[in-house]
């Protein structure tokens, strides 16, 4: 799988490159600025671009801008944004109208190698990877009379993992339960929240996120 990295810290860039290579991913290019990233993506179209949200020259929103541009220009390229802080507003901005091929994770998540590599694969394949902090933030602000309170603890857990972008199989692995059980929880959750059932993995991420964000 072809990956490009945009990260201005040498330590992290090289560490990330090694990590990805050791896990069988093909890093076709690295760069330090948003402009370089756009050029790299056009020259060596990857399946996924891993982007630091703060890039030179101003370290303000260059990484985010580049990520949004790639998403608009090359919907086939997955974009995984990494940041020292995760913000709900930024997540909603990145996802826009679709969670397809988009990821937004705290930088710390890199060191949880299995999960991180799985997230990279998911985004590359058109799925999504939303940081658990975002999801828990959304879940925390629910009102007391919310339909969410009708969920069982297990269902809440499944909802959280679903909102992070995990597939049913991923949720089953994470919770060490059967795929059948996950499917049962999912349809029960959708029923309780009044969400339309039967959409694909990434569509349902946005549906759940928007539901939580409303």
């Amino acid at each position: 799988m072809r990956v490009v990295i945009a990260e201005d810290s040498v330590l992290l860039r090289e560490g990330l490159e090694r990590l990805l290579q050791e896990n069988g991913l093909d890093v076709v290019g690295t760069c330090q600025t948003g402009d370089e990233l756009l050029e790299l993506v056009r020259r060596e179209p990857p399946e996924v671009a891993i982007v630091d949200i703060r890039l030179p020259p101003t370290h303000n929103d260059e990484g985010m801008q580049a990520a949004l541009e790639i998403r608009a220009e090359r919907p086939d390229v997955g974009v995984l944004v990494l940041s020292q802080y995760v913000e709900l507003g930024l997540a909603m901005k990145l996802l826009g109208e679709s969670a397809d091929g988009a990821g937004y994770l705290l930088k710390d998540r890199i060191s949880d190698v299995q999960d991180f590599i799985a997230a990279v694969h998911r985004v590359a394949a058109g799925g999504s990877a939303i940081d658990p902090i975002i999801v828990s933030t959304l879940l925390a602000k629910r009102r007391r009379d919310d339909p969410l309170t009708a969920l069982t603890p297990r269902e809440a857990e499944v909802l959280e993992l679903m909102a992070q972008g995990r597939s049913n199989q991923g949720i089953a692995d994470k919770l060490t339960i059967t795929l059948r059980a996950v499917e049962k929880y999912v349809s029960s959750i959708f029923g309780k929240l009044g969400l339309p059932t039967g959409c694909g993995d990434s569509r349902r991420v946005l549906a759940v996120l928007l539901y939580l964000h409303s």
Partner: protein
Amino acid sequence: MGASMMAGPHGTATACAPRPLVVWSIALVGCAASVVSVSLAATFHPNSGAIAGEAGKPLVLALLFGWLTSAYVGCGLIAWWHRPASRFGPLMIVLGFTIFVTGLARAANDLVFTIGYAVHLLPPVLFAQLFLAFPTGRLRTPLQRSMITGACATALGLSLFRMTLGGLGRHNLLEVVDAPGAAMTVLRVQLLVIIATCMTAFVLLVVRRAGAGPPLRRSLNVLIISFAGGLLMIGLHLGSIVVGAPAVQQIRWATFATLGVAPIAFLVGMLNDRLARSAVGELVIELRQEPAPADLRDGLARALRDPSLTLAYWLPDFSRYVDSDGRPVDLPAPDSSRATTLIDHRGAHVAVLLHDPSLVDEPALLEAVAAAAGIALENGRLHADLRARLDELRGSRARIVDAGQRERKRLERDLHDGAQQRLVALSLELSLLEGTLQADPAACSTIDHARNEIATSLEELRDIARGLHPAVVSGHGLEVALEQLAARAPVPVRLHVDMANRLPERLEVAAFYLVAESLANVGKHAGAASAAITVARIGDQVVVEVVDDGIGGADAERGSGLRGLADRVEALEGRLRVWSPAGGGTRLRAELPCAW
């Protein structure tokens, strides 16, 4: 309280009024001279044709001569008496007597004729000098002085030379040869030089008054107009002689009449100045009503009859002059069209008046006004001082806030680019190491433990960084940043941000902290079920409102949280208002000025 001229050419302390004996003697001599003038002119038979262009009704001329002599001598005496420091009075007296002496050219006696004729072209030059030298009696520039000196030499010296060439009849004692043609040529040269001098003086007068700007006192205006008119008429009269125009006699009468107006205008102006003293009385009454410092200037302007007056207070701590709002005022250059009067109170410099230079001629009025305004001026100065300090304080508070913000931003950036990145990289290294140590479960567990420690450190660092500076605000704007605040709030929050463009960073950061701290207060004290945040641009203000449905009763003065918020808002020259009726929720509204 004392007033002193700084940039007026006036004001020598040594000048004193002439003795009464001197004044009366001059007056007496002047009267006699007028009588002699009138009788000489009235009995004069112009058959000799000695005086250029002299012809026609002798009585009219006699009366005009008598009037000019007595008016200039009389006015000169009054001016000298009231303003001994000015040379204007003596100059007028000299001019009056010179006019008398020129009249002697009508005498039948040879010596008297010779003396009178020798000076008969001098008066036009002296008029030009007098008018240019108003009000001080001194010419302003070396150029003016050389022009008048040259014209005097032409009028007097060339006349003496011309008299040696004859052509003036039998009374001329100086005649050496009889060359009337040459004498005529010299006369033309003299007349042309004098015409040029008078016209130049006319232009100088007009330019000077125009340069002084419109706020000119009315009596002074009339005076200057009569000066300019006199010079114009002299030019016209002498010109008509040169070209031999038909109505020379009538033009001469008109010229004399015009020149005769100047002393009347001068006296009226003096009378006005006397009346002006009563304006000082009005000023005293006005000052008792404790006017605002701005009114003090207006009152002084009225009392001094100078609408262009500027009042500037001296602030020793700032070493500069300021207006009543504390804004710096620059004093004009000493040679500019504005005069400067310094005002002291109890030995300390208090203020300065920038005024029309004609006021320099009225030191007594300035002194009286300065004395009347004494304590009010001192008060005004204190006001101005306070305002200047307030401005400075406001400026320095804004600079301190900005500097603090810059420093915090720099620290956040250092943390982000330094410790945070290194810790993430370190954690990553450990993960890679863990991959190679799969066979050693004990090592793996140690590494896992270390990684958790790093994760905790990163979390703490993130909190510190966020407290230092909300990087997401700088990077992505207020609206994006507020989403997270709203989502993390202890109660459900409705967020409404209505802004087309990004705001200046200091405002965005301030608004962010305002909302963050308000929401924290809502969580701690309000007992609210929900809250609403509105941020909107209204005119040239950014309005931030945080409303909750809690118990209310928040006190802006007692709660240190609210006080801190108010400080933050006031540092940006904004205003924070809090409505918090018991049981009625709390509404907090911050208005931040935003010119962008």
